[in-house]
């Protein structure tokens, strides 16, 4: 996107010469999605606006029961102790953040009265602080008023190391202060271009009532009765909770949004598996909504024929990738394989990495495995739109890959496997145990074989692969393999967290107990510089350009081979009108759900 043109357009919106919708459309035409455009406007001095709402009901209640099926049921209802998105989803039925993300990644107000912007004076121009105005008259389910004290308390609660919340990463470096009963100010330690992490969204943003949790901060946190019986501000009031099995709620008649919610009661059932969940929603209609339906497209298409429901998709930024190891996984140095003191014997030749990326048949992977739930891509960073690079490309071409290897001196040996200087092109390719992943492995292995690369496949139980267990050699951060495949969910519509991981400062090693996030152990000075610059860059256009540059560097060096840009898949009854965002938890926009016969 051209810097100058964009600036003049923002100027036009500011002066009222161009209306906001036209601006968004112009940006969409050049590949910038609405969420990005809105944040551009916010930082360019024009207030962020809420996206349009398609909510139709004209009165509160009367919608009967809403039956949700979460095949991994929530096991606890304190969002700051959530061990997975399922727990955030369950808590979000009752608790609320200040704002959430709608379908297009626009900010949507929940407990806040106004979206902060430079223009309305709530967002500091240098990005070091943001002020939130709270909605007046909001009440907790037990009748106590909601105020700035609760917001400040939530910060105190989560940042306390003794409370051991999983959201402490979001809050520990901030300072949150109460200005008056309905105003809070968040101060950041350094300029923070993406200021909408704390108190926004279901992941980290859910606000706890001070009067329920004040006595249970720190080491006493596990004794709080409200951990299991939440008192929130949300559209539904808590009735019953059985961990892993069931959550029940009833309509909150005092809900702070007009005509909402639509349903009189809500039930979230847990357990079982994704296929039977799809069946219960799409085929028999026993349930209205099924969460995270990771099922082969063939099966879904069959269920949808003449069924009572359908699948729905939401685009986010989740990328299934194959990562290449830049260190040697077979040599042990100081009790550590894949040590930074080694270089990968095969991948240190860029031709091998390039050839590999040509051997991943993304079209077949989409056709055979992901179907409607995937998009092929050359990029590691696939969203939000404004951060997506247009400079990259991919191809699947066995002959070209073979030629590339031939030219680089990798000649087939007697057994058909290429070798050079006595080093054979033999690779170990690991991933977690998961149907689609094993199929992808098979597709890649087959193409590699044709090109004279021998690939050994390895599958590790997910609970081991993703664990932080220092004693286990099969975890993904240890990366004791040449290739590994998985995805890292992108939980917010901003790439900063996602891209920062591969800064050379964060290399995973024995020294940091493999807690470093840069598991490919790739070092690139340009990348480091771009990340550091982006972290401090307040100009949205320059910032987007920096992240695009980061993505392109990852692509040039073939650090990751993106196998698929994955979409969220849910199942819903034909009559249900759910609002699902690729940038938020499934229940984040629950207040806007309704039914249409």
């Amino acid at each position, binding site marked *: 996107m051209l810097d100058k043109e964009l600036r003049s357009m923002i100027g036009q919106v500011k002066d009222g010469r161009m209306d906001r919708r036209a601006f968004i459309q112009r940006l969409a035409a050049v590949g910038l999605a609405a969420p990005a455009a809105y944040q551009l406007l916010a930082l360019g001095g024009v207030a962020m606006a809420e996206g349009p709402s398609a909510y139709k009901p004209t009165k509160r209640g009367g919608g009967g029961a809403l039956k949700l099926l979460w095949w991994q049921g929530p096991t606890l209802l304190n969002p700051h102790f959530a061990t997975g998105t399922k727990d955030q989803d369950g808590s979000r039925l009752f608790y609320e953040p200040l704002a959430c993300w709608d379908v297009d990644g626009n900010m949507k107000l929940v407990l806040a009265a106004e979206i902060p912007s430079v223009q309305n004076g709530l967002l500091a121009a240098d990005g070091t602080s943001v002020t939130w105005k709270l909605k007046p008259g909001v009440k907790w389910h037990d009748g106590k008023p909601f105020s700035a004290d609760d917001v400040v308390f939530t910060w105190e609660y989560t940042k306390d190391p003794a409370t051991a919340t999983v959201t402490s990463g*979001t809050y520990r470096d901030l300072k949150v202060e109460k200005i008056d009963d309905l105003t809070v100010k968040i101060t950041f330690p350094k300029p923070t271009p993406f200021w909408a992490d704390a108190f926004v969204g279901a992941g980290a943003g859910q606000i706890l009532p001070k009067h329920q949790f004040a006595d249970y901060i720190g080491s006493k946190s596990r004794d709080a009765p409200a951990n299991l019986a939440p008192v929130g501000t949300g559209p539904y009031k808590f009735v019953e909770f059985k961990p892993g099995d069931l959550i029940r709620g009833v309509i909150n008649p005092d809900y702070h949004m007009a005509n909402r919610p639509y349903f009189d009661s809500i039930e979230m059932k847990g357990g079982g598996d994704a296929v039977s969940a799809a069946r219960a929603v799409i085929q028999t209609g026993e349930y209205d909504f099924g969460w995270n339906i990771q099922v082969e497209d063939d099966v879904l298409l069959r269920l949808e024929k003449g069924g009572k429901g359908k699948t729905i998709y939401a685009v986010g930024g989740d990328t299934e990738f194959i990562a290449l190891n830049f260190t040697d996984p077979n040599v042990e140095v100081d009790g550590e394989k894949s040590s930074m003191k080694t270089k990968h014997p095969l991948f240190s030749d860029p031709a091998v990495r390039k050839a590999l990326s040509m051997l991943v048949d993304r079209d077949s992977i989409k056709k055979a495995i992901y179907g409607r739930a995937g998009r092929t891509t050359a990029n590691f960073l696939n969203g939000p739109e404004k951060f997506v690079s247009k400079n990259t490309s991919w191809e699947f071409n066995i002959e070209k890959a073979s030629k590339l290897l031939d030219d680089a001196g990798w000649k087939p040996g007697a057994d058909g496997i290429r070798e050079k200087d006595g080093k054979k092109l033999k690779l170990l390719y690991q991933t977690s145990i998961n149907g689609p992943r094993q199929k992808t492995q098979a597709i890649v292995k087959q193409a590699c074989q044709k090109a004279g690369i021998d690939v050994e496949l390895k599958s590790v139980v997910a609970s081991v692969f993703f664990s932080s267990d220092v004693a286990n050699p099969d975890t993904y951060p240890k990366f004791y393999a040449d290739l590994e495949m998985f995805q890292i969910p*992108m939980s917010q519509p901003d790439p900063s967290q996602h891209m920062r991981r591969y800064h050379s400062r964060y290399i995973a090693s024995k020294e*940091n107990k493999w807690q470093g996030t840069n598991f490919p152990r790739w070092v690139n000075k340009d990348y480091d510089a771009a990340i550091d610059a982006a972290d401090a860059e307040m100009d949205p256009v320059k910032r987007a350009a920096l992240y695009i540059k980061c993505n392109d560097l990852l692509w040039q060096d073939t650090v990751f081979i993106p196998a698929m840009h994955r979409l969220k898949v849910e199942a819903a009854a034909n009559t249900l009108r759910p609002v699902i965002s690729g940038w938020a938890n499934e229940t984040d926009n629950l207040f806007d759900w309704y039914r249409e016969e």
Partner: protein
Amino acid sequence: MSQYILRRLMIAIPSLLGISVVLFVVLALAPGDPFAELATNPNVPPEVQAALRAKFGLDDPIYLRYLHWLNAMLHGDWGFSFVSRMNVDRLILQRLPATLYVIGSAQILALMIAIPVGVYAATKPYSLFDQIANTLAFIGFSLPTFFTGILFILIFSVTLDWLPFVYTTDIKGTGIHWVLEMIRQAIMPVAVLGLFQAASMTRFVRSAMLDVIRLDYVTTARAKGLGQAKVIVKHVMRNAMIPVVTLIALQMPAVFGGAIVTEQIFRIPGIGSLLISSILSNDTPVVMAVTFVFACLVVLFNLIADVLYGWLDPRISLR
């Protein structure tokens, strides 16, 4: 007798201790930790994960963790779930009613089929009835429950739309409507489990009956001129049931332990599904408590079976 029971209970203590050590060590050595899912969440810094591990004592040496656990168990504290952040006993008690109801009904169904069919088949061995009963029994225990479960769902839920296949614990309605719904949703899981159990039990009852039916005292009873029914019920069955009672007693812990596969298929919130989801999420305290309670029940019911022996067959004396 009471001395015998006391002695058996004393012997049970070291064996339970041994079981708990084995369970604990196996679980501690098992890979993975409960905070695995956090690892892929870029929102959660690794230090937070490390702090959580420390808070739940996961970094302590195994023997120390075992002693902590044992001490707590002796004080009636079954542990604290990492994943649900609540006491394990509460979690288990919440799951117990569904398991007792479904698995218990399945056992009763199995007995109600197995005993009459087995007894009748044994009185007329190699008759047409016996052949059919045997064939069905073989089919029954060759088909795993995950297969019959899904078959039942396809037939009765998807095609015929008669029965729900998701078990709910909060049925709306009261009185007779509630009872009917409870029965309706339990039909499929109870049938799947009950028929599976009945199949092997029928074979067992039949062979136990056949062992006894050929004995001389049965011939004597017949020679006395007693009717067939009286001979079978009073003389044959009473003796043939001794091994069957043992079998039933040893299966009782399973009623509490739940049925992992069936509970998973029908989404029954029982002990079995609690166990499997805890294993999958590495929630060690819950796995430990469930398996240990299960071990206690096995030891206890073994004792009960032995005591029952003496009561059923006075020839066996317990010392």
